[in-house]
């Protein structure tokens, strides 16, 4: 959805046009779901949290003001706040030191099928992303999954571009460490998969 069209829809939704809000929802629901999924690594929980985000957005829409940022940035901020609430509620925060051994990928069998390895690698990567600290999770999802530019990511996360660059570097470095702990440490292996 183009920016001008999005702004028009927001105004219509604010004045009571349900279909306008439905269009905004349709345009952004998958992005919010992915954001939730890669940060929670749980598809059902991600669905619930996505519903929570849009319910909150509906409630807060009258107070929404276009500050020059995309509507999705506002939704991401809501999603971020909901995640913070969620982590506070369960009394747990994702840290780069945490690793859940129960879902750790088994040692790689070098003779295993390449597709299986890809699948295992994908699972390990999902798991590693979910173990990053929240700001690193966010930058990985926005930069590499949502393919946002540095500037867009900075806008959404309300940070400067240089801060995003640093976060991006630390996130990738931590991911490499986490994957190494899971057994995915061979440079050739990564090369072969990619």
């Amino acid at each position, binding site marked *: 959805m183009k920016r001008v069209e999005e702004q028009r829809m927001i105004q219509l939704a*604010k*004045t*009571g046009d*349900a279909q306008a*809000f*439905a269009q905004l*929802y*349709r345009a952004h*629901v*998958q992005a919010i*779901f*992915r954001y939730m*999924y*890669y940060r929670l690594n749980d*598809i059902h929980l*991600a*669905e619930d949290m*996505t*519903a929570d985000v*849009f*319910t909150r957005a*509906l*409630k807060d*829409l*009258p*107070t929404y003001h276009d500050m020059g940022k995309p509507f999705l940035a506002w939704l991401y901020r809501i999603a971020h706040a909901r995640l913070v609430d969620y982590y506070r509620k369960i009394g747990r925060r994702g840290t780069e030191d945490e690793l859940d051994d129960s879902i750790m990928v088994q040692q790689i069998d070098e003779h295993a099928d390449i597709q299986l390895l890809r699948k295992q*690698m*994908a699972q390990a*990567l*999902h798991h590693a*992303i979910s173990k990053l600290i929240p700001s690193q999770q966010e930058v*990985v999802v926005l*930069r*590499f*999954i949502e*393919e946002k*530019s*540095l500037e867009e990511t900075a806008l959404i996360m309300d940070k400067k571009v*240089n801060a*995003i*660059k*640093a976060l*991006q*570097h630390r996130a*990738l*470095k931590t*991911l*490499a460490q986490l*994957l190494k702990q899971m057994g995915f440490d061979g*440079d050739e292996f*990564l*090369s072969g*998969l*990619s």
Partner: protein
Amino acid sequence: MPLTDEHYAHILAVCIDAVLTKRATVDACVQQYPQYADSLRQELRLALLTKKLKPVTMSDTKVDTLQAHLMQAFDTRKIIRPRFDMWRKNAAAIIIALLVVFAGSAGTVAASSNALPGDTLYAVKRWWESVVVFISTIVGNTETVLIHLAETRLDEIQQLRLRGADYATNLSDLASAIDDILRYNNDLTAREYDFLVATHQFLTQIEGVQAIPSTQTILDEIVPLLETNPEQPPASDVLSDVPMTPTPTATVVPSVIVSPSPTVTTTPIPAITQVFTATPSVTPRIPPTPTRTSTPTPVTPIIMPTSTQPTPTPTWTAFPTSTLAPTVTPSAPVLFVTPPANTGNFIIPQPSVTWYPWQQATWDVCYLTRTVDPYGNQNDPYCNPTPIPSPDWQAAETERP
């Protein structure tokens, strides 16, 4: 962050953009920055790998279900208002809060009207009485307010006695109320006289009251007054309140509806005569208007009971009836040939079990807002609530036309 890390972060960002947009390969970037070859290669491949993760999506069913839920919530939510309406909302909230406080105070005062000593709201009742007394000194009807309060004290004691509660300490309040009345004026009005009679009866006829010390104090004060006013007309002589010269000019057309009973012409004559031959000692509180000093004419209004009266005993119809008003000539004063209950310029309803808080509140407004009217404030809706007399007072009350 050390300078090298910051520099590396910038190089990594440039390479990631180039690789993700396929403007360069991983190897090309690594060759360009050989000093960071190992970490750059690893992180660039991780970035590519992350990008190639199978995209997850929310199922269409879940998306539709959530949309339906949102649309339902959209329909039931409040109407969205622009932000500039916020001050109005706040102003409305303030006004509502003030109204709630005001209504709460008024409601508390009204609710306290039936409170008796010992009740929670009795303090509120006494406070409100003090407010009414204070305002009455400004308005100029303190005498009426004071007798009303004294009657209230006596009524409270009677109700406490019926409850079986201790009322000895409240007799001192009654004594204070009587002191206030007597201190305020020298000449007793009929209503005040009636009140003193009722108080005397209560103090002398009710068993056990005489034993209370305050009783004798009150009796010492009121007995001489009752003895020196043997001719005081019975309850509610309007002459005490209605301005009237000794030579009333009213031409009351004797058009009062005659009851079926022929015996009715015999009874009320003495009372009527007494009314028209008012003693000079009665001091009118309101100067008479010139229209009231015309030539006296012998007036012998024939007062008849209403046709609904079942007994031959003549009585007056309750409160002003429409049958009398049209028969009085415009210039003639309205003569209350029979006084209203408890007299004053208007009827003071007596507290009773059927005396509701709203009536009290209305009556308080009457006190504060009425203009003294020799015609009994009949044009003031606040001062004409229909009183519901208690059984104790009903016997002593005389009806008026």
